[in-house]
């Protein structure tokens, strides 16, 4: 199985569009493709594919501490050891756990000498599976409500997609990442054999492309560039960067009114890619 990441750093450069065009291109060769939307904060691939997210196939949980006041001796061990400053204990009173700051690391309930801290599970994400067309599956991860740490949802979603891909004997696993280069993007890219960095011909696109190429180098993932809306702006900026970093521009997608129009309707125009 070949694992390909689609990323870019900057938002709105066309990661989702390229992911879907790529998936369509690859599946046309009679090879099974699993596309996994790792943008769990704002997943959009399903919208572009005219799918709905109905029954989740998997759930992602986070753990939080919950105090058992009958057992708590107010000894302060939990307060002293928490590195996230998520335990607040007024002098001589019960500790208070602040969910917004808690990383769910489990140290407090592990260390509590009186077993007074229980573990409360809270659902933070869901995983969906759609069979889109022949040889084409979509796996989507989506966070629920206000979730600070979305990285674990990305990892669980990717794990699910990997299992599915193995089960159906898929030939390609495509990971569409979110914007930026934070932990969610890193988790989505880890283990990829190749990554396409989608960018636009502006100083903004080039600025963020340079960062993402540096990240891919650190992660030891070979990179290629896809230049979207290639005929707008200044192409030379991206070309220069490609030369300096010895990264190949694999494909240029020209600006197309039809593509923008269809995209605005939640559809994709047929564009030949790669």
């Amino acid at each position, binding site marked *: 199985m070949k694992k390909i990441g689609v990323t870019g*750093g*900057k*938002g*709105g*450069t066309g990661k*989702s569009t390229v992911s879907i065009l790529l998936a369509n291109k690859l599946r046309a060769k009679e090879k099974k493709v699993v596309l996994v939307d790792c*943008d769990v*904060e*704002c997943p*959009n691939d399903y*919208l*572009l594919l005219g799918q709905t997210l109905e029954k989740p196939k998997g759930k992602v949980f986070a*753990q939080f501490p919950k105090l058992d006041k009958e057992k708590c001796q107010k000894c302060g061990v939990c307060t002293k*050891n928490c*590195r996230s400053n998520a335990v607040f204990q007024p002098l001589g009173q019960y500790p208070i756990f602040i969910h917004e700051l808690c*990383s769910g*690391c*489990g*140290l407090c309930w*592990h260390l509590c000498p009186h077993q007074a801290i229980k573990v409360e599970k809270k659902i933070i994400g869901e995983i969906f599976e759609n069979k889109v067309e022949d040889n084409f599956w979509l796996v989507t991860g989506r*966070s629920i*409500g*206000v979730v*600070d*740490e*979305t990285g*674990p949802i990305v990892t669980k979603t990717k794990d699910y997609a990997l299992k599915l891909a193995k089960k159906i004997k898929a030939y390609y696993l495509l990971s569409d990442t*979110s*914007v*930026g*280069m*934070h*932990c*969610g*993007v*890193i*988790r989505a890219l*880890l283990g990829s054999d190749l990554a396409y960095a989608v960018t636009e*011909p*502006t*100083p*903004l696109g080039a*600025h963020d492309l340079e*960062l993402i190429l*540096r*990240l891919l180098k*650190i*992660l030891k993932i070979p990179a290629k560039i896809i230049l979207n*809306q290639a005929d*707008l*702006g*200044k192409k030379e*900026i991206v070309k220069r960067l490609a030369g300096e970093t010895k990264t190949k521009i694999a494909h240029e997608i020209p*600006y197309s009114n039809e593509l*923008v*129009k269809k*995209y*605005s*309707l*939640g559809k994709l125009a047929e564009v030949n890619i790669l």
Partner: protein
Amino acid sequence: MKITIASGKGGVGKSMLASALAMLFAQKQKVVAVDADVDAPNLHLWLGEKEKWDKVEKISVSERAVIDQKKCTSCGRCVDICTFDALSINNSKLIINNYFCEGCGACEVVCPEKAIKMKPIKNAEIRIKKNVYGFPLISAQLYPGETGSGKIVDEIKRKAEEFKSEMMILDSPAGTGCPVIAALNGTDFAVLVTEPTPSGFSDLKRVLTIVEHFKIPYGVVINKYDINLEETKKIEKWALRQARGKLLGKIGYDQRIFQAIAQLKPILETDLPLKKEIQIIYDRLRRRLSL
């Protein structure tokens, strides 16, 4: 007062609008601009700045577990407590996956051999620049491969407070995760930018859950409104139905914006029609804020 520009979806025009609003507010008030998109900061480019900063400062916002292999007996207690799957034992050797380590320190506490130490890491740098429009821009860059965006945003907000400005304009990153939450937390008003596409609208509603969680008043701006008038109508109708959410304005799609940014020309320095549209948004925003 603090105003955050957010959107959920990337590339819908947050930084473009944030730069223009900061410039407009700066004509009447003491402004500080904050680029909270620490992963991929672009606000300086929209303000016409090349990367010549007045001040650059490396910061450390988190720690990471470091193993002393000489002391480690591979007992596995750290592996059991780590809820982030950052530790594993391979061929009786303890291995750490740095990308998964959240720096919680649980492993350090449970290790009976004192073989794990938490060490601070340099995750980012903070950059400050006073621009030609007379106000400072506080920006930060998360180093590639590092984590902790949310805490970096907290840090640059603290830095920005030091300028004691009347108006702080925060340019939020895309998404709804920790840096977005950090940017929105404690803001007085949120400007939510969207575009008339199913993705833009869906992501607008997703970021709104964060805005509503913090009970922040907000207004909506539809960028590139004319690429799909029907979807624009849908968003306008929806915005009207929201009790506190009123439409602040619309901005038309203009390909020439690509040329402007290619030359690092701030929007307000061009003759493009969207200049007027942004002025209207700014005027409405001032009224909403009773300024």
